[in-house]
């Protein structure tokens, strides 16, 4: 096993996990809502891209752009119609409602596309690579990593340096007081859900190119996203990004040792962080 190569591949895989995680982190950060259907939205996005590219004879890139917009609108509508009714009470309501969505999406996809696996094909770019000395690095993984990094920078700026971000943080801290200060919280939550699902659609595209996907993959993507957030320490997108990279490296190393142990190694690293440092590696707020 080439250690350097394995670690580089793991870091790049972390880029994809970061895209999974940031969509989940936005919703959690603003509304304290864990979206159990998050992974299923990743899968749904990939199927939609596939269908749009096939029926409208568009390139997968154009289809991806359409789905990003579509998902942002879907996020807003979903928040205003269903998710908002589940917020404000106990923990159970958002969990049950988003779990119900997860079941509906997964079985809806089974119904529409069968259980066969699909993938998004983008031609030569899929296999193109550049060489850094002895290590070959795929163009696509590099692109995913770059996009994830850009999203992390963008979200950090949005949350910390814009009026919208200030309103997000204020509402997250205290919804009632933020409302008294003139924040239109219902609309704001809609925006957060729109951003979350928009980022999720980006994740859908890169997931669809990398993997052959089936309707049942959603829950595992949810778990990776969740683990990245917890490993990183809740509260900053940099933490989430770093957590995703750590998870990616752990899975890749595990997989290199024995293919059956890849995902398991990722889970074990997550549990180890939980035991040793439950606040995460890079918590923003020191309790």
């Amino acid at each position, binding site marked *: 096993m080439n250690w350097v190569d394995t670690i580089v591949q793991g870091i790049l895989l972390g880029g994809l996990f970061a895209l999974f995680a940031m969509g989940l982190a936005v919703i959690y950060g603003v509304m304290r809502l864990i979206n159990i259907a998050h992974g299923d939205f990743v899968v749904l996005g990939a199927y939609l891209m596939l269908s749009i590219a096939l029926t409208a004879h568009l390139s997968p890139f154009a289809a991806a752009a359409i789905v990003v917009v579509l998902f942002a609108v879907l996020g807003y509508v979903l928040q205003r119609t269903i998710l908002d009714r589940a917020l404000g009470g106990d923990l159970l309501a958002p969990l049950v409602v988003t779990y119900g969505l997860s079941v509906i999406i997964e079985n809806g996809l089974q119904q529409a596309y069968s259980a066969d696996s699909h993938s998004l094909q983008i031609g030569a770019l899929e296999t193109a690579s550049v060489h850094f000395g002895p290590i070959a690095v795929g163009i696509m993984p590099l692109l995913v990593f770059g996009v994830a990094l850009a999203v992390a920078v963008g979200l950090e700026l949005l949350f910390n340096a814009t009026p919208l971000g200030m309103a997000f943080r204020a509402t997250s801290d205290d919804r009632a007081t933020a409302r008294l200060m003139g924040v239109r919280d219902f609309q704001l939550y809609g925006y957060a859900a729109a951003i979350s699902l928009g980022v999720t659609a980006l994740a859908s595209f890169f997931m669809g190119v990398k993997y052959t996907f089936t309707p049942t993959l959603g829950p595992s993507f949810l778990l990776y996203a969740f683990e990245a957030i*917890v490993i990183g320490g809740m509260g900053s997108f940099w933490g989430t990004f770093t957590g995703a990279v750590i998870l990616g490296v752990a899975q890749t190393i595990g997989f290199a040792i*024995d293919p059956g142990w890849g995902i398991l190694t990722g889970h074990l690293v997550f549990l180890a962080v*939980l035991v040793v440092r439950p606040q995460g590696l890079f918590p923003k707020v020191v309790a």
Partner: protein
Amino acid sequence: MTYTVRRATQASKLAAAAGALLLVAFATLPWWSSSRDFMQLVVEFVCILTIAQMWNLLAGYGGLISIGQQAFIGIGGYTLVVLVNNLGVEPFLAVLLGGAFTAVLALPTALVVFRLRGAYFAIGTWVVAEVYRLFVANLAFLGGGSGQSLIGLAAIPVDLRQIATYETAIALAVVAIFGVFLLLRSPLGFALTAIRDSEVAAESQGIDVWRTRLAIYVIASGVTGLAGSLYFLSALRISPDAAFGMNWIPLLFFTVVIGGIGTVEGPILGTLLYFVLRQTFSGFGTWYLIALGALSIAIMLFAPTGLWGLVQRTTKLRLFPIQSIVNLNSVNPSGEL
């Protein structure tokens, strides 16, 4: 002023009588009915009812919403298989040991997942269930990813095995219903109910919230393991996906939430409804599951207390007298107390 405290209501006395009759009827069923298919269905029903009732204890009373109880179903099932197949333990003893071993493993599991709270706890438990699933799938002597059959039962005559499995299930049903009722009336149950209503207030009354939750987590997981053992004793075949898989999760959400969370009656009603729906509509496959998902969303948003909550609101019916009812008998004429 004098007062009396009563717990039983007219309905609960009737329910107790009806329950006793039902118990006798079901326990003697193998001797007056020959339908082995129905017995098999009852076994499955009891296993799911038990698992749902335990989930209800955690989520409805302990405030511990777990998406990972399938971990303990699987541990119970695999413990049974190893004990019977590899160690030659008598199968019905192995079911009990399956529950005990599950409770033992639940303790260290709790110490890890209790570091997460709320929604994070929910997904953390799911990760743990996945860890157990992947771990078992990687162990060749457990049959790896494809699992194995329960071959150690070959020596027992089929009829005897079916009846014994069935009677074990009846005993488990008593634990799942009457045991939960007794538990909720015990000091531990009062502590749990207090935590359910207000964690802060419970703590201020001297309840050790963390310890109470730990106790209920270990108990609920152990009994879940017992149900898992019995389930796979009846199914005769186990695999990591069947044992630790996600198929169990919607079952718990649907039965407990649709039936009515935080009541003893709710999960019973929910499991009954689930079986009726399944036996009637499961031929519709994915559409059936989509409808179940939509139904649970609708119930959660518009009737969060579930079907039993609706029944209670309209009829004030209480079949399991967990609450104490205080009756003031007389107030003296001067109005002084």
